[in-house]
């Protein structure tokens, strides 16, 4: 029974990890329609930033910058030529992810590296260790920051305007190229932050990104591509489902169950949890 | 033939259609007008299954259309065009028409190459005057030609009810005239509903007009009756109806 109750916070904390890795993805997709397969490698870049600095609090902003700049470069150099072709972007960024993985292997070596967790994260409240709570808090902070940015800053509102009608926004004086750049910077930066957080609980190596990318995509799909509210609910839902499914069966089956659940869910809500309505015929 | 009763559509609290009743008997050419946001396109969307009404009934020839999938409604004989014409640019003109003509055939029979041009396609080509361009890819057509191709595709479908969403928008004067002739021809042996802003076009071709305003039917009647109606003038901001509706 105790174990059963424990699974609840565990599920939420798994959800927090999912949310954190999917947040940047949902941001870039929602705002720009870009599916970034190199997102996992931006997470990895964040984790390696933490490895180089060996200081969690310093690493958070630094990783945001590092991954964000990588995203910025990617956007300027390649992705901007692909707007409106999400499938091509998906494949292009996959190529980028391959190169980045091998680059990490050459720069840092193939074996995992160690990032020491700060001593103040040792300990636990109930079943949840401090580092899990830290991730939970970080995920919440990330969501709040994105929400505040989009709804309550000038630049955020511009971003929203571009999402709703790119041409109209452009003719009313918004530099859409700049907005895209900034959006991609933030989305990738969030991946970097996720990478720092993941060093607390997982391996830090060239393959890091590949472990999380499929799950992150599932969250984005189930949440409704690009919907912040949806992503939060989907992450929590999938986290809990995963936690209980694994508890009653095993880790392998839990993954299969989560996948089946997402397919089933799409039968009920084909466009994810929340969708923007549009009268345009696509 | 087509009957709408108390149709309501709500988008995020906004009543796009707020209890519309509409009856179109067989063989009629009906124009739908109204200011922007009056719900004209939404009405067509409801009839063709693109938008599901929150309440109300839509019957075509005794069939309930609400909740039916788009392609099933087409199979009942209801065809439509779009404001911004959508044709398949990678296919040739004749291929576009041929696809439109073939939908009643079983899918497996499509696994063969097209041999020659079917009668329906031939007819559509002649009516729209696109014979010369038959083998050109649809991507190279001008705006007007695209609109005609779309009309041609609609004809090739051999529908019983045609819904045209702003068929002359963006056309030159000559193109409009040709479209008008085409429309007259079509209306001779089809039931047609046209959404149109162009008042001159309206005057020349309309027999009966329905005016929509804020999701409701404001008035219905002949062109003269409608343009004389003070409520219509008020809706169009008190200006002379011809200026206002003509836009």
């Amino acid at each position, binding site marked *: 029974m105790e174990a059963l109750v424990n699974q609840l916070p565990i599920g939420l904390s798994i959800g927090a990890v999912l949310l954190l890795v999917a947040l940047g993805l949902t941001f870039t997709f929602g705002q720009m329609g870009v599916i970034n397969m190199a997102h996992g490698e931006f997470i990895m870049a964040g984790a390696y930033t933490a490895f180089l600095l060996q200081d969690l609090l310093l690493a958070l902003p630094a990783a945001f910058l590092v991954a964000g700049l990588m995203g910025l470069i990617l956007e300027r150099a390649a992705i901007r*030529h*692909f707007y409106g072709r999400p499938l*091509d972007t998906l494949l292009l960024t996959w190529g980028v992810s391959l190169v980045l993985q091998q680059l990490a292997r050459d720069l840092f070596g193939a074996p995992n590296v160690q990032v020491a967790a700060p001593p103040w994260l040792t300990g636990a409240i109930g079943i949840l260790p401090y580092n899990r709570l830290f991730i939970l808090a970080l995920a919440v902070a990330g969501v709040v920051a994105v929400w505040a940015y989009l709804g309550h800053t000038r630049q955020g509102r511009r971003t929203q305007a571009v999402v709703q009608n790119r041409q109209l926004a452009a003719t009313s004086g918004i530099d859409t190229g700049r907005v895209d750049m900034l959006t991609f910077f933030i989305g990738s930066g969030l991946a970097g932050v996720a990478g720092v957080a993941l060093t607390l609980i997982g391996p830090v190596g060239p393959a890091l990104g590949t472990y999380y990318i499929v799950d992150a995509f599932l969250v*984005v799909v189930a949440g409704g591509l690009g919907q912040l509210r949806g992503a939060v609910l989907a992450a929590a839902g999938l986290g809990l489902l995963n936690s209980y499914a694994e508890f009653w069966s095993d880790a392998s089956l839990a993954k299969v169950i989560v996948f089946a659940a997402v397919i089933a869910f799409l039968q009920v809500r*084909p466009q994810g949890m929340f969708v923007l309505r549009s009268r345009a015929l696509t | 033939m087509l009957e709408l009763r108390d149709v309501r559509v709500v988008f995020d609290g906004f009543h796009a259609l707020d209890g519309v009743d509409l009856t179109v008997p067989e063989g009629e050419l009906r124009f739908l007008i109204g200011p922007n946001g009056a719900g004209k396109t939404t009405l067509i969307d409801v009839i063709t299954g693109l938008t599901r009404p929150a309440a109300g009934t839509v019957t075509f020839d005794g069939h309930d259309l609400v909740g039916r999938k788009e392609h099933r409604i087409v199979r009942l004989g209801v065809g439509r065009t779009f404001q911004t014409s959508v044709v398949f640019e990678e296919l040739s003109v004749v*291929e576009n028409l041929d*696809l*439109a003509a073939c*939908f009643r055939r079983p899918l497996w029979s499509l696994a063969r190459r097209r041999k020659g041009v079917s009668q329906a396609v031939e007819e559509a080509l002649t009516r729209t005057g696109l014979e010369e361009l038959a083998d050109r890819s649809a991507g190279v057509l001008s705006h007007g030609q695209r609109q005609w191709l779309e009309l041609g595709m609609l004809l090739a479908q051999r529908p019983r009810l045609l819904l045209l969403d702003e068929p002359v928008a963006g056309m030159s004067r000559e193109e409009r005239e040709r479209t008008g002739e085409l429309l007259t021809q079509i209306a001779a042996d089809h039931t047609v509903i046209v959404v149109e802003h162009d008042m001159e076009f309206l005057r020349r071709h309309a027999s009966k007009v329905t005016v929509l305003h804020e999701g409701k039917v404001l008035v219905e009647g002949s062109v003269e009756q409608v343009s004389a109606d003070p409520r219509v003038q008020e809706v169009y901001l008190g200006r002379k109806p011809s200026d206002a509706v003509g836009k």
Partner: protein
Amino acid sequence: MIRKHLPFATIAVLALVAAPLLLEPFRLSLLAKYLCYAIVALGIGLAWGQGGMLTLGQGVFFGLGGYSMAMYLKLAEGGGLPDFMVWSGVEELPALWTPFANPVFALGMAVLGPVAIAVVLGTLVFRQRVRGAYFAILTQALAAAMVILLVGQQGLTGGTNGMTNFFDLFGADLAADSTQRGLYLVVAGVLGVLYLATRQLVNSRFGRLLVAVRDGEDRVRFLGYNPATVKTVTFAASAGMAGLAGALFVPVVGIISPALLGVVPSLELVVAVAVGGRHALAGAVLGAVLMGYAKTAFSEQFADGWLYLQGALFILVMTLAPKGIAGILGRWRSARAT
């Protein structure tokens, strides 16, 4: 007429006569392996290039075909339980396995199994108008889930090891060079037939309809067709091809394992199709053979570089020549013609 068929005849002669004569057996079976991949690529070319469905889970179907064939081969050996069951502690043959002793059933399942899964998945997702990126991601997740499932059922599937160590195929010694040559001819023949059939389909009305669905799914609905059906049929056809390719792959290469049907191999094939040229079926075939060859050649020279090369090649193709090699050749040809 003759002119029209001359190039194809040339290839057929080259592939069926010259290659077996010129290549040593090891290289010939490598080529056979690439041609298996080319069959999968053909299906991807159909689904993605023509139908716009980016399927990132084609490895799943390839794997199902491969596993069906492998199960037959394991049972055909005779001599009791398959080796991996023995060391997995399985004591009697699972019921799931029994019908696979029949080669007709096994081959049928290799094709129909993938088709059935594609029909179910296609019906579920296309009916709900899940498309584009959604579909891509879902097929990718399918590949991931499938691998986990196969790995987890070690007693049934051989786990991560998969199945290997096959001895004979319909009485012929699989190790013999003559068998491998024969297998090569079968693979090349199947590829040729499927290529012609797919081309026929693409040029038919259905092919036009498929392109229409790709470019304007919603518009097609108002032409009275159900795009979900069109897409499901196409997806199923491409799945069937992948399944058949998998079934041929197993006797050629001698192994099937979950690693062959995961996310990465599925993506690699899509890359190959993109490099070859997704809109031309021949481009897809070309891409698969070239990338297969490049991978072998490159990893023989310098292993680490392969990932760089693959990634870079891909970025270059996507940015500079989105229509792939076929597109470049096409442009070059039309430039010369004018």
